[in-house]
């Protein structure tokens, strides 16, 4: 079975450490962590992920700015993004069927199973 490549962009190192451990221990994912959002585009080009898990509120560059920067780059602009954020509640996410402003959202803290199911639903091909 092919593993999927996940780029995890979040400034909370403690969070990215444990999430990476969880994802990798399933055997289904190869995870690359980016704690400084300014590196996100460069790492996306280098790593070619199937999906980016993207925090929203980060120092230097916020999640939506990262998305805009990705779109300016032809080779990676179709990379699927799932926002993983503490700024919305699960209830708000549910009310909008998981999509806010055109992007899939997962509310922190959400069960690991739900996070995996959102990754599976949204992950795309590597171009």
């Amino acid at each position, binding site marked *: 079975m092919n593993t999927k490549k996940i780029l995890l962009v979040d400034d*909370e190192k*403690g*969070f990215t450490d444990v999430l990476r451990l*969880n994802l990798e*221990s399933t055997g289904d994912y190869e995870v690359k962590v980016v704690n400084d959002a300014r590196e996100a585009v460069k790492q996306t080009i280098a790593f070619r992920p199937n999906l980016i898990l993207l925090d929203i509120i980060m120092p230097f560059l916020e999640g939506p700015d990262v998305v805009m920067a990705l779109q300016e780059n032809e080779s990676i602009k179709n990379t699927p993004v799932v926002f993983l954020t*503490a700024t919305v*509640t699960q209830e708000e996410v549910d009310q909008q069927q998981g999509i806010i402003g055109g992007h899939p959202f997962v509310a922190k*803290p*959400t*069960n690991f199973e739900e996070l995996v199911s959102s990754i599976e639903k949204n992950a795309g091909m590597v171009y």
Partner: protein
Amino acid sequence: MAEKEKNVVNFSDPLSVLIVEDNEVDYKMLSSMLKDESYKISYSQVTETLADAVKALKEKSFDVAIVDLNLSDSKGELTLKEITEQFPLLPVVVNTGAYEDDLGLKTLGYGAQDFLVKSKYTAYTLIKALRYAIERKRLELELKDTMEQLSVTQRQLIEAERMRIIGGLASGVAHEVKNPLATILYGVTYLTDHVQVDDEKYQVVLDNIRAATHKANNIIVDLLDFASLSRLNKKATSLEDIIEKSLSLVGHEIDKHKVSVSKEITKDLQDIVVDKNRIEQVVVNLLLNAIYSITEGGNVHIRVHNGCLSSEMIKSMGLSEHYFKNGDRYLFMHIEDNGSGIKNENLDKLCDPFFTTRRAKGGIGLGLPVSKNIMELHEGSLCVQNKEDEGARATLIFRTSL
């Protein structure tokens, strides 16, 4: 224009006057002065005791009263106090003895609008005193009303500002707390799957950490909910649909606690204009409170009917007399249970944020305050009382357009 005219003193309106005086010479003199046709007194009546005066004032409405303070059944300022307390809208002119100027002045502080000094007034000054007293009383009431409105507005402004601050604080705190909670949760998830120790205690510890994380998150979610109430999405909605949806949402708890539910809903209910999700949230909260308060086999009864507010209801439900008027039409929804009821000492605290009697069972104490807030934002209200026999009754009132 009609509004303006009402505010102008009209010295030509005929007056009805009550004279409270036990001295024959005095009341005869007053009566004869008032008889002069040019003064337009439509009616005057003499009573000699306070008891008779109170009786007369209850039977008939007078424009103004002339009151001697020293009567056979009441003396001094107590006479005035009794009358102004029982008839707060009545203008009063006190009739004092010849050497009682000080007392006369004092009576103004006790609620009289003017005073006469016996043997020192003429028909002309008497009438002028009565007309001025009426006008002064009118201004006094107008001022009182304005002050009340100001204080309501002030309270609303303070409340709005408080909510704004809570809102800002809540979303800031939520973000900062949820990030570490997510780390804890995924940490526990990882350990649960990978700890290879054959000791149940480790799993118990991990389960407890996971449960505590969820609880902390629920508190944050409720707090955000409490703070975000100002955004309502109001639409015409059927209350019956809201009730059905809410019942289905708590269906699991109804089954688990073996509770029966009965309904008594007036036919042809008109729609209410509300935020459906928010009102569902209120009804679910109240249903859960009812279900949790009753022992197995109890009953939850839902009653919905149209009706008018009465003064007694405004009082017993603790409604603000400024918003809720006697005779206003409302849609009433009662959720009644035959459970344990509410301890008297807790009745006043029910809607205080973070007050709960179910803390041990995971209660946070935001259900009722949030519900009450939601109802007030819909210009309605929520009140919880004990029923006369057993159990509690929660009543929701919704303003209807008719």
